[in-house]
Structure formats: structure tokens, C-alpha cells
């Protein structure tokens, strides 16, 4: 096992190529995600950000035409290896989606469901309260835990979805444009929350919002598209460096708004 060598990365990709049928959506990605930090993935629309993110917890398995080459290592294990159970992968690598998607169940059930199916043995009430507090939602919903998750506002729903993801106690949380449906105040709340969560969790966030990437992340990966529309990673480094002193002309063009 290559365990030791990868121990200090939360996720490491090696020569990853991602395909939809014959179309190569992403090519040759080698990326190391630092644990307990926030990594932002930025880049123009269609460059494969979501595809990369969803390959980190095998969410693309549900796309019949999806195919991958290379290795994605989590704790030194290739999560695409034959003997790996994708359900176990997703328990440890949670996801928050672009559009808030609470279950049509009560707020309580939304949070408790994931823990319950994963055989959580402790006190569910406590877990629900704790994760709702962690997601900075507790004060707003504590009197209405029986109300439907769908009765909340968009920003509250998104925090509910974050709480729901936390309740499973993952190590990594993937977020695909989690603020794109939210107003600036709700967005700031989520960003504060991410900062808070990054003490315990590794967070990878896809965003179209340059300011968000600049202010909320520690590391930034910039992706773009080749002439054959395959996405590739142009530059990866500390956020401060990417935004103040990009090494690649394409990165500079993109972050200064001169792209395309």
C-alpha cells in the first residue's frame, strides 16, 4: 500500500481523465487536496469543475456513460478500485449541491436520516441539535423541528443541507456552487460557516464567484478548456498567490475578467 506517502493529503488524483461516452470532459488532472483547508475550484463554464468534484465521491457512477482513467486516492486507497464500495466512500466524502435539495421530510428527519441509515448509535436528538448548531441554523429552527425542510428559505435550506451532510460525520465535504442560488447575506453566512467547518473538515468548493474564491478559500485550482473542449487544470496553488501573482497567462486573464 502507498499509505504513508499519501497520508498528508485528503485527496490525491493521479493522471485522472474523465469521460462521458467518447467525450473527454477532463484530462490529466494531478491534484493534491490539503486536509482541513478550503480548496476552491474555479474556471469557465463547462470546463469540468462539477465533473471533477463529483468524481471525488463517485457521484458520477449514476451517469451511465461516465468512465474514468487514473486514480483518485483517499487515505491512500484508490476509490475507483474494484473492491471499493461507493456507498462507503460517500459516507466519508459528503456533498452539498448547487440547488438546495432538502428531503420533503421534517427538518429533524432531514438531519437524522443520513445518520440513521449509517447506523448511528448515539442520541439522535443531540446529534441533530449539534449539527444544526454547527451549520448555524439551530437558533432559526429550534422551535420548528417538525416543520418540513421545504418550508425554509433558500439560504436556510442550504444550511440544512450542510447540517445534513455534517450529521454523517464525513471527513471531506464537497460543495458545488453552494451559494449560487443565494443572496449576498446568505452567501456570507455560508462562507463564515465554511471557515468554521474547515477546522474539522476538508472542504472543496466549486464556485463562479471570484471574490468568494479569493476570500473564502486557502487553495485555488484554476481549470480551463482546451481546443477539444476537454477541461484541464492550468494552475493550482495558494489562493493568495493565484489571485495576486498567477504564473499562467490564462489564469491571469480569467481572474481579471479578460477571459474568452
Amino acid at each position, binding site marked *: 500500500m502507498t499509505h504513508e506517502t499519501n497520508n498528508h493529503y485528503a485527496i490525491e488524483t493521479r493522471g485522472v481523465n474523465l469521460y462521458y461516452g467518447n467525450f473527454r470532459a477532463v484530462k490529466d488532472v494531478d491534484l493534491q487536496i490539503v486536509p482541513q483547508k478550503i480548496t476552491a475550484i474555479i474556471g469557465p463554464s463547462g470546463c469540468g469543475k462539477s465533473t471533477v468534484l463529483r468524481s471525488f465521491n463517485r457521484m458520477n457512477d449514476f451517469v*451511465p456513460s461516465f468512465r474514468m482513467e487514473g486514480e483518485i486516492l483517499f487515505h491512500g486507497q484508490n476509490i475507483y478500485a474494484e473492491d471499493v464500495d461507493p*456507498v462507503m466512500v460517500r459516507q466519508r466524502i459528503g*456533498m452539498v449541491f448547487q440547488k438546495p*435539495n432538502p428531503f420533503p421530510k421534517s427538518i429533524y428527519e432531514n438531519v437524522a*436520516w*443520513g445518520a440513521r441509515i449509517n447506523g448511528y448509535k448515539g442520541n439522535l436528538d443531540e446529534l441533530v441539535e449539534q449539527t444544526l448548531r454547527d451549520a448555524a441554523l439551530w437558533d432559526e429552527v429550534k422551535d420548528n423541528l417538525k416543520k418540513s425542510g*421545504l418550508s425554509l428559505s433558500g439560504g436556510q435550506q442550504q444550511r440544512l443541507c450542510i447540517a445534513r451532510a455534517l450529521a454523517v460525520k464525513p471527513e471531506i465535504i464537497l460543495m458545488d456552487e453552494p451559494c449560487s442560488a443565494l443572496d449576498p447575506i446568505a452567501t456570507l453566512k455560508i462562507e463564515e460557516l465554511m471557515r468554521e467547518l474547515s477546522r474539522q473538515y476538508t472542504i472543496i468548493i466549486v464556485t463562479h464567484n471570484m471574490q468568494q474564491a479569493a476570500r473564502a478559500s486557502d487553495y485555488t485550482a484554476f481549470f480551463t478548456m482546451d481546443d477539444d473542449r476537454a477541461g484541464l487544470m492550468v494552475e493550482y496553488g495558494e489562493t493568495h498567490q493565484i489571485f495576486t501573482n498567477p504564473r499562467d497567462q490564462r489564469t491571469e486573464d480569467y481572474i481579471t475578467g479578460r477571459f474568452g
Partner: protein
Amino acid sequence: MQKELITHPPLADAGSIRAIHLKKKPRLGEMFIQGFLFFCGAVSILTTLGIIYELGKESLLFFQMPGVTLIEFFTRTEWQPTIGKFGVLPLVTATLMTTFFAMLVALPLGLSAAIYLSEYASPRARSILKPILEILAGVPTVVYGYFALTTMTPFLRLLFGDQVQVYNTLSAGLVMGIMILPLVCSMSEDALSAVPQSLREAAYGLGGTRLETALQVVVPAALSGIIAAFILAISRAIGETMIVALAAGAGPNFTFNPFLSAETLTGYIARISGGDVAYDTPDYNSIFAIGLLLFGATLLLNILSRRLVARFREVYE
């Protein structure tokens, strides 16, 4: 801006302003189509009203006959209109039994098939299985009736021995269930497929297995639609005629034994209207009363199902 508007001369007087055309324009094609569509809608509504009127009028004749009362109709357990026995219960129990056995088959199998098609089947498997189900739905009911009589009943007799009569409600009910299965399956599948993919992704993203996701997230989200499918299936079973007329029995029998022959509400109507009964005899009038009963039952079920579907729509967004 405001001021300018007020000081402006009225439009009509201003010759210099170019008149624009805002008058109504006759659109003949539009009017014709609208009228035609209205006519089509009206036909179906008028037909329904006509049916209600006819059923009501003839049933009234029935209930005005000497010796017929509503109480007797709904409480007595013998049904022989020709000799003055007007208790509809034997027909009702037979209908309840065939419906019950049909649902025993159609609901679990139909829902399971729907879950399989919507949550498990590969696109290829789905493209093979759905047409097969549609064929099942297209088989004429008379074929099902003979299937009950010549295949299901002998099979039941093999299992349970001679206590199973040649005509019996169990056989008719089970086969009716097979007939209704495609309806339950396709309606439930519609309800399941209408559940947004994002909900499934949410469940999988929390480490849900396919089964947990299907049963604990997708099915509850589609529940009202599924219940609506169930209710429609029940009203279909209550109204089904050919299978029960052929296989359940041709004579009222107040029993809860599924192995015995018993005539259902629809079976009775089919038998009486198939024979030559004279106008204004008790037999003749009674079939309208029973028709009204059936109409009321299915109407009630349909209203219930519409309510549930409406609730279902409220679930997301």
C-alpha cells in the same frame, strides 16, 4: 415627466401623432378552434350528466317499487329481485372480495415493478420491459376471463382441492389483479420518475444505498401519486366486468369463502342485461340501482384520488 404628460394635448385631438391600430381583430380560425374544443369538453360533460340522469331516474323507479326500501337494500343478505328479496349485500361482498384479491396481486407487484423500473433498471432493461407491460395492458379482458376459468381455477384446485368451485371469486380476483398490474405499475412509475434526481443525489451523497434511497426517500416523496394509482386501481377493479362475469359465478351468494362462486355487482348487471328481461320488471330496474351504486363508489374514489394528486404536487416547490 409627469408634468409634461399633463400639459400634453389629448391623443385623439393630436392629428400629428400617428394613429396606432389597437382595435380588436376578428381571428376566425382561433374562434373556430375554441368553439370546437368547447364542444368536445361539453360532450363529455353532457354525457356524464345524461348517465347520472338516466341512472337516477331508473333507480328511482326501482326504489318506488312495493317492498323496496333503502334500508332493506343495504342490510339484507339476499338478492332475488324477482321474488322480492332486495338485499344488495351478497353482490357487494363478492365485489369486495374480487377487488381485495386483485389488489393483493396488483398493488405489491405493480409497485415493486415500478420501483424496479424507475430506480434499478438500466435504460436497456427498461426499454425491453415497458413494452411487455404495455402488451399485458392491451390484452382484452375476455381473454383474462378465460385465463381465470381455464388456467387459474384448475391451478387453485390443484393447490386447494375440490373445495374450490369451478366458478370462484379468488380465481377471478387474482387474474383481475394481473390485468390491473400494468396500470398500477405505470402510474406509480410516473410518480417515482417525477421525483427530482436531486433528491436521489442528496440521499446517495449521504451514503444511502440504492434500496434505502428508493424506499426511504423516493417512495415517500412520490407517496401521494402512488396512493392515487392505488385508488384508481381499486375503482378499476370494482368496475371490471368481463373477468368476474366469466369466472366468479353467475348467481348471488352471500359468503366470504373465496373458493365459492359468487356474483359481483358488475357480474349481475352483465347477466341481467345480457338475458331478455322485460322493461319495468324488478330485475330490469334493479340493474340501474346497482349501476348508480357502482357509479357513486367509483366517483368517490376518483375524487379521493384527485385530492391526493393535488397534495402530491405541493410537495416540492
